[in-house]
C-alpha cells in the first residue's frame, strides 16, 4: 500500500472537506461553548441522531444479506442447509414476536394490533427471551471457561524471565480470586489486590495512553488526508 499522492478528484475533495469539517466540529464542541447564541452540544447531538438514523437503515440490509445467504443455502441444499432453516425461522419468529409483545413493541396500547394477539404473544416472547435467548447466550459465554483453561494450560510456560514473571503473577491473581485459597492463606487476596492496584493499573494505563495517542494521530491523519 504505497502513499497516495495522486491529485484528488472533485468528489474526493468534497468528501475530504466534509470529513475534516465534521471531525473539527466535534473536536471543538468538546472544548468550546458559545453561550447565549447556539448550544453547540445540542447541534452535535442532533447531527449524531441524523447519522444514527441513516446508519440504522443498514440493519435492514444486514437482515436481507443474512436471509439471502441462508435462503441460497437451503435452495442449493448445501451441507448445512438444515441449520439455515432453523436460523431463518428463529430470526423471523423473534422479529414478529418482538414487534408485537416485547418492551419495545410497536403498538403496546393495542391501537392497531388486536389486544388478543398481544396477550397471546406476550408469554411466547417472555419464554423465547428469558428461557431460550438468555440461556443460550449464557451457554456460549460459559464456553470461555473451557477455552481459558486450555489456553492457560498451553500458553503459561516459564520459557524466559518475562514469561516466568507473567506466569507467577497470573497464578497469584487466580489464587487470590478463589475464596478457598484465602482460607488456606489470607495473603493470597492481599497479593492479588496489590497486583491489581499497582502493576495491572500501571500496565493498563500505559496501553490506554498509547492507544489514545494512536487514535488521535490516526483521526487527525484521516481528517487532513495525511499520506502515510
Amino acid at each position, binding site marked *: 500500500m504505497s502513499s497516495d499522492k495522486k491529485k484528488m478528484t472533485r468528489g474526493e475533495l468534497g468528501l475530504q472537506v466534509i470529513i475534516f469539517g465534521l471531525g473539527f466540529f466535534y473536536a471543538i464542541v468538546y472544548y468550546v461553548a458559545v453561550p447565549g447564541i447556539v448550544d453547540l452540544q445540542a447541534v452535535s447531538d442532533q447531527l449524531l441522531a441524523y447519522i444514527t438514523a441513516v446508519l440504522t437503515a443498514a440493519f435492514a440490509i444486514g437482515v436481507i444479506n443474512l436471509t439471502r445467504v441462508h435462503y441460497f443455502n437451503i435452495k442449493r441444499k448445501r451441507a448445512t442447509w438444515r441449520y439455515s432453516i432453523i436460523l431463518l425461522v428463529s430470526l423471523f419468529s423473534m422479529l414478529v414476536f418482538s414487534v408485537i409483545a416485547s*418492551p419495545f413493541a410497536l403498538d403496546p396500547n393495542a391501537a392497531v394490533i388486536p389486544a388478543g394477539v398481544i396477550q397471546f404473544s406476550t408469554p411466547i416472547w417472555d419464554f423465547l427471551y428469558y428461557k431460550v435467548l438468555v440461556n443460550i447466550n449464557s451457554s456460549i459465554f460459559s464456553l470461555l471457561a473451557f477455552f481459558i483453561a486450555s489456553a492457560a494450560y498451553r500458553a503459561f*510456560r516459564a520459557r524466559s524471565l518475562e514469561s516466568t514473571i507473567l*506466569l507467577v503473577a497470573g497464578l497469584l491473581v*487466580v489464587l487470590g*480470586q*478463589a475464596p*478457598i485459597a*484465602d482460607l488456606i492463606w489470607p495473603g493470597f487476596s492481599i497479593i492479588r489486590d496489590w497486583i491489581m492496584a499497582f502493576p495491572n493499573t500501571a500496565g493498563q494505563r500505559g496501553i490506554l495512553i498509547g492507544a489514545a495517542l494512536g487514535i488521535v494521530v490516526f483521526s487527525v491523519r484521516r481528517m487532513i488526508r495525511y499520506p502515510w
Partner: protein
Amino acid sequence: MRNGVLATSLKSDPRLVYVILLLVITVPLLTHSAVAVPISPTTLALYQFIQNLPANSLVVESFDYATSVVPELHPQAIVVTQQLFLRPLKVLFVALDPNGPPLADAVLDTVNKGNKTYGVDYANLGFIPNSATLIGMPLSISEFLPLDTHNNPTASLPIIKEFPAIKLASLVITFDDDSSAAYSYVQYWEGRYNIPVAVGATATVAPGLMPLYSSGQLVGLLFSIRAAAEYEELLSQQYHCCLGISGASASMVALSASHLLIVAMVVFANAAYFIGRRTSRRNK
C-alpha cells in the same frame, strides 16, 4: 514418563481438560457445598458508601449488560438492589443496553421490596437511547425520558417530582459488561456533575477499570459473581437475611475449585515441560 504421556495428551486433545473442568465445576454445584468468602476492598467500598447515604437519597441503577453475562452480573444487580431496598433510599432504573429494561424487571421480581411502592420509591425508566438523553438527564429526566417502562408519564411519578434531575442523585451504579457504560457515566455524569459512580463488572472487564477506582473516579467496583457472594455475606452480617438470594454464594466452591484446577494444570504443565527439557538435555 507417565507425566509426559498425560502432559502430551492434555496438550494435544483439549477435550480432556474440558472434561476435568466440567467435573470440577458441576460436582460442588450438585452437592451444594459452601465456603466463607473474604470481602474485597472494592466491594466493601461500595457497600459502605450505600450504607452511609443519607435517608431519601436518590440512587440510579443502570443495566448495561447483555443476556450472555446474566450469570455473572445479574447476581450483583440482585444483591445491590436488595441493599438499596433495605435502606430508606429512592431508586431509578435505567439502561444503556436495550436488553437492560427486561433484566431490571427480572431483578425487581426477585428482590424483597418490603413496603416500597412503584412510582414513589422506585421506577423503571427504561432504555436511554442516545448520548443526547444521557447528557440531558442530569438537567431534566422527564424531558428526555417522557415515559417509563409501564408507559406512565415520568413527570407524573412522585419520585420524579421529588428528583426531577439526575444531578440530584447521590450515586449511579452501572452493571456493565464491556466498560463502555462505565466510561460514559464517568465522563458525562461524574465528570460534569460530580455524581459518584460505581461499577459492577465481569471478571474480564473489571481489571481494566481499576485505574478509575484507584484515581477516585469510581467509589466502588464489583468483580464478577464473587462480589455478589461477598455482598450476600455483608447483607447477612448486617440484616441477617439475603444469603443465597442471588445464588452467588452457592457457586463459590465451584468457582474456587475451577481456579485451583487451572493453577494445578499450569504447575503440572510447567513441571512436565522442565522434566522433558532436562531429559532431552541428558539424552544429548
